[in-house]
């Protein structure tokens, strides 16, 4: 094990399963999950959509900021970062909406507080995705360069790979990678308009799947160049990150699985890991017809008859869009700390076109290599390996 690898020094997350990655992982392993439900937040205008909503006693803008605060604080605490170390860190944020929640909250509040008046025009008052990055940098005193990647569902998984590349090149000493996505009317209605929403439940890789369900979340992963001892009971490295963007289809990764195969094989090649060494796969597994078909076929092409356990977390926490990379990675790391991999929720029946069932039992989480896959709008793909040492 090289001391010059990209080490994971800390992580934290807020998901619908808890206000920390540790709590979320324990609930995931114990099966204490709540199906997506009609949401209660005051800014959501339609009660037609079920989503994975984080419970909070306060307005949605305050909640969003509290989610960020909790996730980043948990990661910094786990990493035992000093103020000086935070100050010299590079910040990479993956988000699609940034603080767009402010527009939605202010508009709905204006309508609520003025019931007798005509509703005001919709306005965009947020400063673009980078606004949240500067907010985080200012609040936590992060003084290194800041980057905001706004890449739809791979925003924060791409950010992790970009960060790992900068660390490997020694352009930066440490990276704080944040994923952030609150529930928005814009995305709920948007995916519904694309007919990609499952009104019942999220069923990754299931024959009966009919779409995704959105979740909200925030997460933070601290990556460092060189060996670290402060992450937890075990040590973790990020290996073989690869990002790729195709230009064939805006909405599909190609249902023949070829692109998925290429991306996963390249991630494994960069990690210098043979497919048979992979202990388990944290799949993207959105529950949409095309994504799961692309991914399932791609994984089958890479692993053949030796497919390791495949687990999608989206049946338990929903699809956190741009935050999915960071949130699912943080939850997985906490599961590894607990020594147990959760089952894949929402599955009932094998799809013969996919040909396998995602893992339906909790499994031990030994030391070894774990593969992560993420796919997104705009034919974007990310894959990497996390090694538990």
């Amino acid at each position, binding site marked *: 094990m090289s001391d010059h690898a990209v080490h994971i020094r800390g992580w934290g997350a807020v998901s619908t399963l808890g206000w920390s990655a540790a709590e979320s992982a324990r609930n995931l392993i114990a099966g204490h999950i709540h199906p997506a439900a009609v949401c209660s937040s005051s800014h959501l*205008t339609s009660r037609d959509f079920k989503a994975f909503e984080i419970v909070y006693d306060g307005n949605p803008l305050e909640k969003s900021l509290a989610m960020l605060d909790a996730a980043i604080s948990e990661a910094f605490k786990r990493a035992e970062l000093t103020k000086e170390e935070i*100050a010299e860190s590079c910040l990479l944020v993956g988000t*699609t909406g*940034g603080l767009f929640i402010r*527009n*939605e909250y202010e*508009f709905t509040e204006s309508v609520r507080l003025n019931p007798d008046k005509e*509703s005001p*025009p*919709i*306005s*965009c*008052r*947020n*400063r*673009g*995705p*980078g*606004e949240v990055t*500067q907010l985080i*940098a*200012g609040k936590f005193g*992060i*003084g*290194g*360069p*800041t*980057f*905001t*990647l*706004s*890449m*739809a569902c791979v*925003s924060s998984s791409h950010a992790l790979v*970009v960060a790992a*590349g900068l660390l*490997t*090149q*020694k*352009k*930066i000493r440490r990276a704080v990678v944040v994923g952030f996505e609150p529930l928005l*009317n*814009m995305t709920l*209605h*948007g*995916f519904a*308009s*694309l*007919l990609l929403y499952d009104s019942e439940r999220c069923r990754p890789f299931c024959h009966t799947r009919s779409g995704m369900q959105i979740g909200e979340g925030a997460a933070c992963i601290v990556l460092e160049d060189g060996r670290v001892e402060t992450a937890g009971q075990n040590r973790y490295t990020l290996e073989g990150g690869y990002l*790729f*963007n*195709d*230009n064939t289809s*805006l*909405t599909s990764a190609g249902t023949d699985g070829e692109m998925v195969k290429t991306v996963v094989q390249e991630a494994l090649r960069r990690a210098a890991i043979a497919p048979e060494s992979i202990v388990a796969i944290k799949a993207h597994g959105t529950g949409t017809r095309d994504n799961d078909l692309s991914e399932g076929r791609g994984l089958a092409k890479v692993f053949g008859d030796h497919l390791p356990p495949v687990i999608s977390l989206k049946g338990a926490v929903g699809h956190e869009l*741009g935050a999915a990379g960071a949130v699912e990675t943080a939850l997985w790391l906490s599961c590894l700390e607990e020594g147990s991999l959760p089952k894949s929720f929402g599955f009932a029946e094998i799809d013969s076109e996919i040909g396998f069932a995602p893992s339906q039992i909790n499994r031990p989480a030994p030391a070894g290599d774990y593969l992560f896959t993420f796919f*997104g*709008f*705009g*034919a974007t793909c990310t894959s990497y390996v996390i090694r538990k040492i």
Partner: protein
Amino acid sequence: MTAEEKHPSISVIAASYLGPSLSPNEDLPWDEASLPHSCDDLVQKVLGQPMRRAGRFIKMVCAGAMACLREVPPAALKNKRTGIFLATGLGNGDEILPFVTQVFKHDGGFPSPNQFANSVSNAAAFFLARTSDIRGVILTVSDEELSFEAALWLAQSYLACGEIDLALVGGCDVYTPTVEEYRERMNTSPANSRDLPIGEGSSWLLLALDQPERIGEILAVQMHSAAISPSEYLRSESYSILSAAAADSPCRIWLPGFRLKNPDAPQGFGLHDYLQSCGIHPTASAFGMARAMRTNPASLLIHYNQLASGRTAIIAAKTSQHIE
């Protein structure tokens, strides 16, 4: 804290600028009150065909970037691993706003799936990838007024490590929907920005490592977490090193970003006040750099930019003796 400057110098193979007049690499008159103009003629002129089912932002991204790629012979692009680094401060507000209006008000009909698809943050980069037949490293970077600098910094890293052969780096922001809202989204006020019209643009550089056929070089992209004044920067050791590296450049050109209340060039510098040509918009620095690259031979270019918070970014470049 300063971002490290360990990048090797990067050749600028081509540059193209596009401002509110929607005429690539020309400075035609325009005025804030008449914005936004239709860019369909521009798309037809640059791409040779219309872009159906795409809004102004996507069209501007594609037209601006393709105008840059057209500056080099196709053979220079063939079989090259090209990365796209699209910088945008505000993204595709042009399609987000109508979509959200439909969501909240339903007075424009039900939300359009096409409009939602186009409004997603990286849709414009996807359309550009398809138009230019580029696959691989494609990043959409959105860091307010320092978006272009952030994208340029990342592009340098990808070139330096050999992951790509060419980097198409540009910035695009489009006017929408009102002057007041546009200014609010950019967080501009009389106290923190120059009193100039707001504008828009899509301006691009094509970069490579060590190319003999070049119009210039990016010497450094520096990002400072705190405010650093122009005079502090020009007294710094890093500027001394750059200045020495550009000793063969007889001209020194100062390019001030729109947060700099006093745009006067420091002593020893000429002023390239490009904001008069493109107006204030978050990625105006891309316009400034591309325009200066094309119009100032044998020069050291220093672009100075800031966020309202004070975070500062500086691009240092030099141009070749003969540009055209």
